[in-house]
């Protein structure tokens, strides 16, 4: 058995730990001095709400974690073997309230957490439209994940773009996400909102609202093959006038997106540059969706309609 001859030894690590963590903190603060910390720097309503929720949950957890950690390390120090003054009770008898307390405290915290979580989950469900935030006419953008690029289709404006998406600020934007000949991808613009999966044969809806103009990086957060790291795009938020001008510029652009061009896009490419197309074929997105509905009689139904149903329950019967 080991005996410590020098009781001071045991209290020393705490200063090293404190100093080390302080140093690490300062180093990190220095490195972050001009960094754009995406999640702490939200530029849209949803991202802001999500950040608030993260902070609320963090604070509630700290309420339980800080005292627990303090007690843990304080007792470890106080009841060290070399501290003759501390009482020693080898029987380990507890107060009768002890068991009650150790169950009641975390249950109360969990109820509080659940009480915050449930309404927040309902409110921030990505499928729900954001009419309650802004009464501007929503813009619908259909997104197709391909290997390894993002195709954005603006059905109302009859344009399309690759790896670049322009949106108006203070206007709800509905992204309708699917994928074509691609593994699952995850559509993520951290400054504007959390991510949602883009899957073949499914339409997942992500509603966002940007409130500050700017260029925000987006990517696929879910691994989908060799070109994964290069599957990036820029989401540019600008005023309605900027948006209209951009739409017009693309509409008169020479490149056109039709079936042939679409098939070309479908071929896997890496680090694909931004491209802009006038859309000459309507219903392209629905065709992409239909492609995966198989030979089932209950296939996707009327494409483009009733897509707000949750995609998992939307699956035709007979798949399980």
């Amino acid at each position, binding site marked *: 058995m080991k005996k410590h001859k020098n009781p001071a030894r045991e209290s020393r690590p705490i200063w090293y730990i404190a100093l080390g963590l302080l140093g690490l903190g300062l180093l990190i603060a220095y490195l972050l001095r001009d960094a754009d910390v995406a999640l702490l720097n939200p530029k849209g309503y949803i991202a802001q709400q999500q950040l608030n929720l993260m902070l609320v949950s963090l604070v509630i957890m700290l309420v339980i974690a800080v005292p627990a950690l303090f007690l843990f390390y304080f*007792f470890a120090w106080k009841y060290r073997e070399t501290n003759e003054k501390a009482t020693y009770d080898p029987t380990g008898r507890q107060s009768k309230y002890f068991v009650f307390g150790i169950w009641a405290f975390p249950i109360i915290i969990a109820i509080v957490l659940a009480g915050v*979580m449930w309404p927040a989950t309902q409110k*921030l469900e990505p499928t729900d439209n954001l009419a309650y935030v802004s009464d501007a006419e929503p813009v619908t953008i259909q997104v197709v994940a391909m290997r390894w690029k993002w195709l954005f289709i603006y059905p109302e404006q009859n344009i399309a773009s690759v790896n670049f998406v322009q949106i108006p600020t203070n206007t709800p934007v509905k992204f309708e996400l699917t994928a074509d000949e691609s593994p*699952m991808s995850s559509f993520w613009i951290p400054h504007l909102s959390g991510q949602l999966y883009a899957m073949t044969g*499914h339409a997942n*809806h992500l509603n966002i609202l940007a409130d500050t103009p700017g260029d925000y990086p987006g990517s696929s957060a*879910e691994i989908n093959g060799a070109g994964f790291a290069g599957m990036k795009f820029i989401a540019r938020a600008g005023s309605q006038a900027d948006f209209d001008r951009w739409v017009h510029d693309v509409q008169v652009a020479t490149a056109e997106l039709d079936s042939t061009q679409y098939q070309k896009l479908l071929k896997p490419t890496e680090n694909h540059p931004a491209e802009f197309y006038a859309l000459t074929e309507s219903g392209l997105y629905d065709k992409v969706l239909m492609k995966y509905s198989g030979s089932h009689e209950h296939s996707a139904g009327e494409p483009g309609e009733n897509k707000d149903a949750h995609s998992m329950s939307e699956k035709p019967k007979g798949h399980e």
Partner: protein
Amino acid sequence: MKEFLIGRLDTNALPHDIFMILGSLSFIFLGLGIVAIITYLRRWKWLWNEWLTSVDPKKIGIMYFIAGGFMLARGGLDALMVWLQQAISVDGSQGYLSADHFQQIFTAHGNIMVFFVAMAFIFGLINYIVPLQIGARDLASPFLNTLGFWLYIAGVLMVNMFFFAGGEYAATGWLAVAPLSGIEFSPYVGVDYWIWSLQISGIGTTLGAINFIMTILKMRAPGMTLWKMPLFTWGSLLSMIMAVTVFPLLTATLFLLFFDRYFGTHFFTTTLGGDPMLYTNLIWMWGHPEVYILVIPAYGVFSEIVSTFSRKPIASYRSNVLGMIGVAAFALSVWLHHFFTMGAGANVNGFFGIMTIAIAIPTTVLVFSWIATMYKGRIRFTTPMLWFLGFLGIFALGGISGVMLGFPPADFQLHNSLFLVAHFHSNVIGGVLFGIFAGLNFWFPKIAGFRLNEKIGRYAFWCWIIGFCLSFIPMYILGIMGATRRLDHYDSSTGWQPFYIMMLVGGIVIAIGVALQVVQIIASAIEKNRLRDTTGDPWDGRSLEWASASPPPFYNFTVIPTVTTRDAHYEAKRQGLLKPAYEDITMPRNTAAGIYISIFAFLAGFAFVWHINWLAIVSIIAIIVCVIVRTFNDDTEYTIPAAEIEKLEVARLKKDTAAAARTAKVAHPDEDMGLWQFIKIVAIWALDVIKHKRWQTWKHQ
């Protein structure tokens, strides 16, 4: 004809890129080196009879530790390779790995660390300690246990086979999520190696778990009711019950994926009615509990350690057990929180979010139980206790971030980011790995007969803590900055690079910690006379494993103890230990059936990877034949007469007394040797060996 004989194997499958050549060469040299040493020392027969065919859970436990240790080095190297790539692959630089190769490495890292490191160590601890803790001489089904071990070894070989044939491992992430893992997007053999290494070792896990459930439920010493079981045994029981519950799910899922890839079925494809979302559900129904299968025994280890080194019984034993049961139960019902972002809708997400929060309740109860155990204790700061103290800080970090991730709307932002990766590494390193290290330091004297060097153990511990903070605190920050996981390349304008470099530095510090742990074991072996445990109870322990000698005889206990209380050995010590009365002991015979079955399982897996149908069929028939032959073998046990036991015991006592006398002579008040002293001793020894050609005498020993 060629296709019939060797399937899709051809010369292209031979290693030709530099990494595969290096990998296969290092495996060949390692193998040849081991073979050469064993042959030189003429130890083949001994190895076969005493170790490979042994059904003794203590020996199987040690073999698990050795295999797990090798795989820890292998998986750790993967981690360093990943971090090196990420530290340098910025802007114009593409790093030193292709994207595809990079993805294979982190996939292998995940699989190896979870399946072939953590599972190995947890199963090793359970094998060695649980029979001792419940006062049993052997297992309910020693054969299932050895079969489970050898299937694990077959899995280990399979996960490394791609170095030799194919040169490709899965590039899909550790759960090979469909449809990426389907034949359309992963046409070559990588995913097949993934399937078969997990399939074979997973079946081994199921079999081993069945044995331990039976052992714990049916083989406990008289008087040991469930409410008197040591907490590590409780944790093991719950973990094994979970394993039996969810591993068949993995087996089924892997078979379905295999059918998709081999026979062209459409379970998880994107077309013809297949549904990749089904795969995501199935794999996480197993994958989430899998982490708890690893961590619940670790909770048990920590409970044993905090109680022993605080010199107090665990505070509120029943709450502790119920806490573990609660964690196990909730862990089965939270799998969907791994894909809130698949878009299941607010109600489904909300339900699984609340279930996730609910896990925090029993976990917090466990933490309070540990805190209260230290309260009014007499705490000794030994290395096991240090690992425990380190665990809780890191685990709290993992818990807090876990609750944040459990909020579906917050998860939309944090999912698939490095924040998530940092979260589960906090839990798996802090909880599982530190639990394993604590357990190994704690039970090492029982296993080896001498305790571990405390000083170098402390150095290793601090390297791990510092390395962890340097690696994973920046990783949390990167996640908050919007860095997704698994990036092989990024732009410097993101400002991420300094943090990736910090992660690499942290990884190197952890690697030094691992090296120090190896040094710790060697340094302890050098000083083993001074560190020897002749009492069987070096820590003033509380449960029955300390009632046996260190290391225990192959029959564990001369007399099966009768249990009347919790902390049975602690109470027995206070009332005075009983004199042994000798009796006939029946023990299971060694068997090689597990080895044969595993060889054929390996061949079957390899055949399926390369579409060698005849070999697959032959191997499967051979497995069935082996099982049948083994089933008809009635002569599986033998009895050692009481007189023989008495002889063995007397001899052991004599040896222990002599050793104790030697130890008393060697023992001096100095502390355990430090690092410099170790280097000096090793250098002097090496010079001496070379000078006097000492190896010539080794084989005669």
